[in-house]
């Protein structure tokens, strides 16, 4: 049991390590555009759009 929100769909994707790791890399490589845009992951010639509903930055006391 985890405390973070992980939908059943996300759990299934996390179990598929190559897929979840590729999506993570896609999100990182497009991190400069994440605030406004979505990321397209192409798998076997099929395009999948990973939607970013919102982005939030949390500044800690140490943050500048």
């Amino acid at each position, binding site marked *: 049991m*985890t*405390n*973070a*929100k*992980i*939908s059943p*769909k*996300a759990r*299934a*994707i*996390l179990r*598929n*390590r*190559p*897929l*979840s*790791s*590729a*999506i*993570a*890399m*896609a*999100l*990182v*490589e*497009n*991190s*400069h*555009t*994440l605030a406004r*845009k*979505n*990321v*397209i*992951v*192409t*798998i*076997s010639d*099929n395009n*999948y*759009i*990973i*939607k*970013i*509903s*919102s*982005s*939030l*930055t*949390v*500044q*800690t006391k*140490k*943050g*500048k």
Partner: protein
Amino acid sequence: MNIALSAVIIFILLMPPIAFYLSFTFGRFAKGGPGLLEGLMLSAIFSTVLHGIVLYFIKAETRFDILALLLGGDLKTFNITVTNGTFKNLFLAFVKYNSILISTSIIAGLCFRWLSERFGWHAQSELFRLYNRWWYLFQGHKIQWFANQSTPPDFDIVFVDVLVNTNAGTVIYSGYLVDFVCSGETLDRIYLSETIKREFKQNSGSGEARAIDGETMVIPYSNIINMNLHFVSFPEDMESVPGAEISVSGE
């Protein structure tokens, strides 16, 4: 003067509001409670009102003289004021009165908790807030507040970029937020899956991204400088996709 006895009696009389509050906010990620002084003051105020209301409806005689005698702690005249048998009956009535009041408070607290969750009041009002602030942040409720929506956005998972102080310098760790631990209102650590590491460069963004081996990475909050959260939704038909021949691009 028996201070311990009067302290115990006063504590028992203060218990109904405390029982209500604890049953309303119990559980994981419970919000931080008021300080000791504030808590005692609030308990005293609510207890006085509550006992006043209940006593208004009790028609039988209430022996305040015995209560005052016990609270005062001067028990020299106790055996003159009350016999053993009478005190037994009064004591049983006191236990019954407090048991009913405390049980009712617990049930009322649980009912309020259920209503607060059922109608989403806990996310909209500070008065009905049930969980600590990190829980609301990671569940997307902050977005709900900012966007003035009635429900938080629908998303599958949170993807986090964390700027972390390490011995080797400042590093950005990115990954799926799979778990987090809080102590009261303070975040203690976060757990990331599929973690990717990049060197943080002050003027030229970030360095090359390198995936970190391992299932889960734990990052203590004390080392975190800031966090960037992305609320990610996966397409409907993606969960059955095999992880082969993958390429990515921004839209």
